[in-house]
């Protein structure tokens, strides 16, 4: 069974500090939903509010349409997977997994049987009698998932559970988690500061900034159609050119910046008028080399450094105004073509650039 989760104007305050500010959204039943944001953006607080460890200062949390006010964590249809997993070190693997059944007073036979089924589900068959300390990081991860699933939650909450794993394992566990979610058919709410995790696994992503939800969209929309300057700069690499909007026809606008005059598409979500302070965002992979004689968005730059990362060359360029511009060039097997200090002209198409109102940018 899966349940939807509704947040209605949820705010959480600790003294003078507001951790979550007026959050409202609906997470559909059976959805893989992620909250993405830098550390300190309030995403963990929001998760704890859903799980019942934190009461909202204002607003309501509804799970399956039921108001959760006054319902403690042990009575909610949610299960939380902690960042450090919080497995019980003095219990064996199967005791850990079947803890929720022990709480309900099920017989040892029942518990062993269910633990075995869940170990099967998370691809750890026959490991029930091991001690928690005997497992590897990835195995502990799966035990934590199994332990949470054993409680038969309608909503599974995950607090950055992959952050302690190494890169390869993390990528593997992404696929695994997604598969488990589809098999279990329940709502997953995932918290992460890692955009790669959020974008690959989720049906939808909510990007958070300083306790506020900036944007809720599916992965491609968050990446291709950011609605705020923060989302544009936080999700994926982006080059930002600040300037003043000089003309707009509703779908495309012209912006005067110290590095040149650029045209870019406008976002449907933010109405910009002539004269507004705004920022043009261009992804490093949308930048290409061109000639000063060409038409369109052109910038004269100097090559500062280049980094080889297998499938891409990452170049750092500098405009005549001293602004750093990042550019990614697909590795076509040719040796590095340029030398630091070389003068180049780069360009980008208006369709691959987006103009957004001036706002807070993510920290580099």
């Amino acid at each position: 069974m899966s349940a939807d989760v509704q947040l209605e104007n949820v705010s959480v305050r600790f003294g003078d500090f507001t951790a979550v500010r007026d959050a409202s959204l609906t997470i559909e039943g059976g959805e893989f939903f992620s909250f993405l944001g830098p550390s300190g953006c309030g995403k963990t607080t929001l998760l704890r509010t859903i799980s019942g460890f934190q009461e909202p200062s204002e607003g309501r949390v509804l799970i399956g349409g039921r108001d959760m006010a006054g319902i403690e964590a042990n009575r909610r249809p949610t299960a939380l997977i902690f960042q450090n997993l919080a497995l019980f070190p003095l219990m064996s693997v199967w005791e850990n997994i079947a803890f929720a059944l022990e709480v309900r007073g099920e017989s040892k036979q029942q518990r062993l049987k269910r633990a075995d089924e869940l170990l099967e589900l998370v691809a750890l068959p026959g490991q029930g009698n091991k001690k928690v300390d005997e497992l590897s990081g990835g195995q502990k991860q799966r035990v934590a998932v199994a332990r949470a699933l054993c409680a038969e939650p309608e909503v599974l909450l995950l607090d950055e559970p992959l952050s302690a794993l190494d890169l390869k394992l993390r990528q593997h566990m992404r696929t695994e988690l997604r598969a488990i979610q589809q098999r279990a058919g329940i709502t997953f709410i995932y918290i992460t500061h890692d955009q790669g995790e959020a974008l690959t696994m989720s049906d939808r992503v909510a990007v958070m900034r300083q306790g506020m939800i900036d944007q809720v969209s599916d992965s491609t929309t968050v990446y291709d159609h950011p609605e705020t300057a923060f989302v544009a700069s936080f999700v994926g690499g982006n080059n930002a050119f600040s300037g003043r909007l000089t003309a707009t026809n509703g779908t495309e606008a012209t912006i005067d910046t110290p590095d040149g005059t650029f045209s870019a598409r406008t976002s449907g979500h933010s109405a910009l008028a002539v004269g507004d302070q705004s920022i043009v965002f261009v992804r490093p992979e949308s930048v290409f080399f061109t000639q000063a004689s060409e038409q369109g968005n052109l910038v004269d730059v100097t090559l500062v450094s280049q980094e080889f990362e297998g499938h891409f060359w990452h170049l750092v360029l500098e405009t005549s105004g001293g602004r750093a511009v990042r550019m990614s060039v697909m590795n076509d097997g040719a040796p590095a073509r340029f030398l630091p200090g070389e003068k180049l002209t780069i360009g980008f198409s208006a369709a691959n650039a987006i103009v957004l109102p001036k706002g807070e940018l993510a920290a580099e």
Partner: protein
Amino acid sequence: MISWLKQFSSRNGVGLSVYLLGTVTLWILVMIILPQLLMLDFSFRHNWHHMDPAKMGGPEDVYTLVNYHFLLYGSPNNPDPFNVVDVTVFFRTIIAAVFVTIFDLAICYPIAYYLAQVAKGARTRFMVLALIVPFWVNEILRAFAFRILFGEEGTLNAILLALGILNEPIDFIREDVALYAGLGYAYILLMIFPLYNAIESLDKNQIEAARDLGSSWLRIHRRVVIPFAKPGITSGCTMVFMLTAGALALPQIIGGPSSLWFTQIIYQWFNTGSNWPRGSAYAIVLLVVCIAFVFLVMRIFKVRIGEIGR
């Protein structure tokens, strides 16, 4: 051994190494092992006060079990099958010490849990201070204060009478209430701090995880907190039990007139009885039985000796 010494001195420097090895060796040999060996030696000897000084060290000055025999069977003209007074006092002391230990554990566990997992910052510091400061008052003063508190005309009786809960005063001292309260209070810090240390190192997420999986608070304590705190519980209980069984001043001052603590009998043999060998034998029996008892309980609760130090 030589290479270990070399390594030790290269790691700590020659000066510090000599100091550490010297003091620790001195401490263990002179302060711990030697005196106890002397006591053990005493306990197997005849009382020198009954021996002609000329014969001391002579062929009649031999090892004997007479002192241990006396603890079990009393004097040769004792009509009972065993030494009723001493043996009874011995077991009563052990049982009372167990009772005081359990009582302390019951009182201290919630306080230690609160300090370690619930209270924050300034409140923790204030509570710890409030626990420690009363122990600046010395033991004798505290004991006599308890006499005043628990006496037949003491504060507690006065309050209970004034509130109409009692019609006539209870002699808390005769009933040993004062003694148990005093002993329970005397070693409370030795229970709280090991518990606090153990519980404090428990990851809060484990408690929340258990809660999240539907557990009641009772089960969280039974399945998560107490198993984790077991080494702390063991070291707290061991210390309180040993010190209670070996307490002397409190039983002397606030013990009821009819109830003797085993240490008081030992004290009498050493002091008024002028019989050091017998006093030593009694003290050795108390020590050995207490240690054996602690190991037995640890075995029952499956705690290894190495865990206590954690």
